[in-house]
């Protein structure tokens, strides 16, 4: 099987990643934010007798790179030398996009032009003579609609055919003067136009020639070449594009009049954010309850029935009910919440609203000494800190990038929310207010951190604001579900591996030495008791809480699975009658009810997710509520909010910025979490009089 290396190149927002999604069928992340594909994304597809490896390059306007993601694309084309380039063009903006096409053609690599968003172009009255374009450049030209996937099927056979026939584009001809000049610097017969131009522009020994040319033409050589490229792109555009005057009103302009309104734009943004969080809680709550019931009342008794019928030992039974159900099962309950949050964040991203937030909020951010574009990684941080840190690559200056990376870990992610919603519902009458306060506290700390960094280490001015706003697009549900599935799959994977391992590990520590009757006399008990004094100022003397914090460094939600394991080791199990068919019927009925409640909740004006329910029968909840007070529960949440208790975040910081930054930041967050946790305990103690 032969392999073909294909690079997808194009301007930002032309739909490269969407196309890749359609071709390779892999669940890649696609967004409207210019530069969301900062990482090299790859898709692999087998077609005929070939393995086609597609690489999605970051969006660039020109092959003269400035920001980091532009360098990535530039270096890939120069150094990795793809077998073929798919040059994706956003047809409504063809004149602009053709500049990159011209620059790509200079590299003399086999190329296929893909006219994407052809539907949007037609609506605007733009007609492209694709045959003529193909003839002029000597390349194949295909038309696609990246949103629906129309026309995508034709890409693969064309890639293989071009690869086999080694079809090279026609040599690009600039003006006679420039062509002669380039021939003059040619040393080998096979040098590409791109190489000749590079030589002419940068080689030391040609300095004199450049000086001479400047005198003759009255401008710098690089200006001369740039003008030629623009002229070429403009000429091509004039040749192949015809425009019919259309008076169709643009939906994007109308929407922008409201959403980007100088006065109302910002309040609308806050309202949308409120709705986003209200919806995520209200819609997912009934499903979370259902999953909880499904695991505890259906899966658990079923498997335990199975284990006892197999005649396995008592310890297997206990490992299952304490580590698997108590630990992993408990964390799984939160899958619906995570799925809904990601769905809504993805909707915001793909619809084109997210980049507008950067523009809108630059006004506020600017006053706080931050670039408006910084807000997008920060918002993504509410989804997951790790991709948010990766997304900072789209920021132009290192200063902005470092400032934002130091803020992102304080943006509360769903993993933290999982912990908050457990404790807040358990200890407080108005859990919504507590959770809202925690989110705000995180944001406040993030800005204070940035503020102090700006006054000390990262001085300097805020960079210019330059960015493109894509048109509003309604993403297909299929696309959104694909994106959500990537995150949910990742979460499930972690539940099955990392969280499972941590739960079993904790369970083992709780049961060593063998035959230990009281968990507090086990190894886990001793370790917990040894570190518990450190947490005494936060009101967390209980060894079980301290112990659960150790494995939680891997990921915060492990705090709950560990507690689940520790506490359920103490619970006396009651035997219940279990009838398979009846239990199954109950589960199906329960799912229907959850669906109904979710829809009903969505339309309630006030968040209903946190209406307190009496869950007295739940032994874990009862045990935890005995060992903590409201004040110490608050301290615990504050501590976990601020301390970067997440291996993934620390690792990505290490990779993106460096070891020193990652370690210093971890220590800073730990100290901050401890100090503010202590403060929260004191304040809580006064407020709730404990």
């Amino acid at each position, binding site marked *: 099987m032969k392999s073909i290396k294909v690079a997808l190149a194009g301007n930002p927002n032309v739909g490269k990643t969407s196309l890749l999604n359609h071709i390779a069928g892999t669940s890649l992340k696609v967004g409207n934010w210019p530069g969301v594909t900062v990482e090299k994304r790859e898709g692999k597809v087998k077609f005929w007798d070939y393995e086609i490896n597609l690489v999605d390059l970051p969006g660039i306007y*020109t092959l003269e790179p400035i920001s980091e993601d532009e360098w990535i694309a530039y270096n890939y084309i120069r150094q990795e030398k793809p077998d073929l380039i798919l040059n994706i063009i956003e047809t409504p903006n063809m004149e*602009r996009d053709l500049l990159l096409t011209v620059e790509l053609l200079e590299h003399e690599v086999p190329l296929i032009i893909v006219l994407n968003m052809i539907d949007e172009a037609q609506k605007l009255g733009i007609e492209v003579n694709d045959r003529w374009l193909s003839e002029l450049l000597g390349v194949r030209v295909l038309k696609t609609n990246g949103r629906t996937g129309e026309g995508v099927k034709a890409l693969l056979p064309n890639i293989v055919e071009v690869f086999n026939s080694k079809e090279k584009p026609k040599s690009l001809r600039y003006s006679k003067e420039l062509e002669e000049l380039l021939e003059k610097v040619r040393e080998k017969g096979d040098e590409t136009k791109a190489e000749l131009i590079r030589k002419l522009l940068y080689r030391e020994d040609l300095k004199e020639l450049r000086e001479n040319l400047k005198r003759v033409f009255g401008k710098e050589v690089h200006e001369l070449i740039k003008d030629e490229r623009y002229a070429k792109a403009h000429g091509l555009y004039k040749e192949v594009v015809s425009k019919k005057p259309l008076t169709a009103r643009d939906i994007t302009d109308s929407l922008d009049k409201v959403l980007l309104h100088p006065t109302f734009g910002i309040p609308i943004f806050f309202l949308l954010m409120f709705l986003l969080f209200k919806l995520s809680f209200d819609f997912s709550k009934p499903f979370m309850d259902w999953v909880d019931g499904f695991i505890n009342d259906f899966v658990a008794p079923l498997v335990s029935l199975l284990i006892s019928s197999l005649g396995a030992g008592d310890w297997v039974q206990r490992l299952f009910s304490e580590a698997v159900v108590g630990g992993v099962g408990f964390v799984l309950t939160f899958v619906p919440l995570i799925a809904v949050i990601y769905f809504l964040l993805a909707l915001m991203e793909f619809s084109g609203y997210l980049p507008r937030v950067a523009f809108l909020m630059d006004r506020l951010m600017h006053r706080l000494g931050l670039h408006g574009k910084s807000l997008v990684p920060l918002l993504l941080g509410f989804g997951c800190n790790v991709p948010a840190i990766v997304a900072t690559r789209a920021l132009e200056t290192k200063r902005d990038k470092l400032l934002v990376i130091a803020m992102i870990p304080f943006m509360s992610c769903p993993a933290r929310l999982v912990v908050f919603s457990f404790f807040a519902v358990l200890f407080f009458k108005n859990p919504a207010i507590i959770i809202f306060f925690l989110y705000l506290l995180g944001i406040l700390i993030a800005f204070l951190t940035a503020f102090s960094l700006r006054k000390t280490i990262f001085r300097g001015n805020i960079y210019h604001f*330059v960015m493109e706003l894509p048109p509003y697009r309604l993403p297909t549900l299929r696309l959104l579900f694909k994106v959500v599935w990537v995150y949910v799959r990742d979460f499930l994977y972690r539940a099955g591996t990392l969280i499972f391992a941590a739960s079993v590990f904790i369970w083992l520590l709780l049961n060593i030495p063998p035959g230990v009757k009281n968990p507090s006399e086990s190894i886990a008990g001793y370790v917990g008791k040894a570190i518990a004094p450190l947490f005494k100022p936060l009101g967390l003397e209980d060894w079980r809480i301290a112990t659960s914090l150790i494995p939680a460094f891997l990921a915060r939600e492990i705090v709950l699975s560990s507690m689940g394991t520790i506490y359920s080791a103490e619970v006396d199990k009651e035997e219940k009658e279990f009838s398979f068919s009846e239990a199954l019927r109950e589960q199906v009925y329960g799912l229907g009810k959850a669906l109904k409640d979710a829809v009903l909740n969505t339309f309630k004006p006030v968040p209903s997710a946190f209406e307190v329910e009496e869950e007295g029968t739940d032994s874990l909840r009862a045990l935890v509520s005995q060992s903590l007070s409201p004040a110490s529960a608050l301290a615990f949440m504050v501590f976990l909010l601020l301390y970067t208790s997440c291996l993934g975040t620390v690792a990505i910081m290490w990779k993106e910025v460096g070891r020193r930054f990652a370690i210093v930041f971890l220590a800073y967050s730990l100290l901050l979490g401890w100090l503010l946790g202590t403060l929260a305990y004191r304040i809580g103690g006064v407020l709730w009089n404990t």
Partner: protein
Amino acid sequence: MNLEEVKPGQEVTILGLSGKEEVLEKVKAMGLRRGRRVSLLQRVGRNLLLKVDNSRIVISRDLAKGIEVQ
């Protein structure tokens, strides 16, 4: 006049760009070049929202000051 002085809703032609910043190359590649028609859609804070062809581009005022228009 320069682009910073244009009023919302007004359409102008670019006469030239001046300034030393690297970012100007990007601005040009995004379509803000001599001879192109640009209309100002909105001003928000330190930024201007422009329409060039079918794309919407945001640039900050300090950059707009260096763009001569008519």
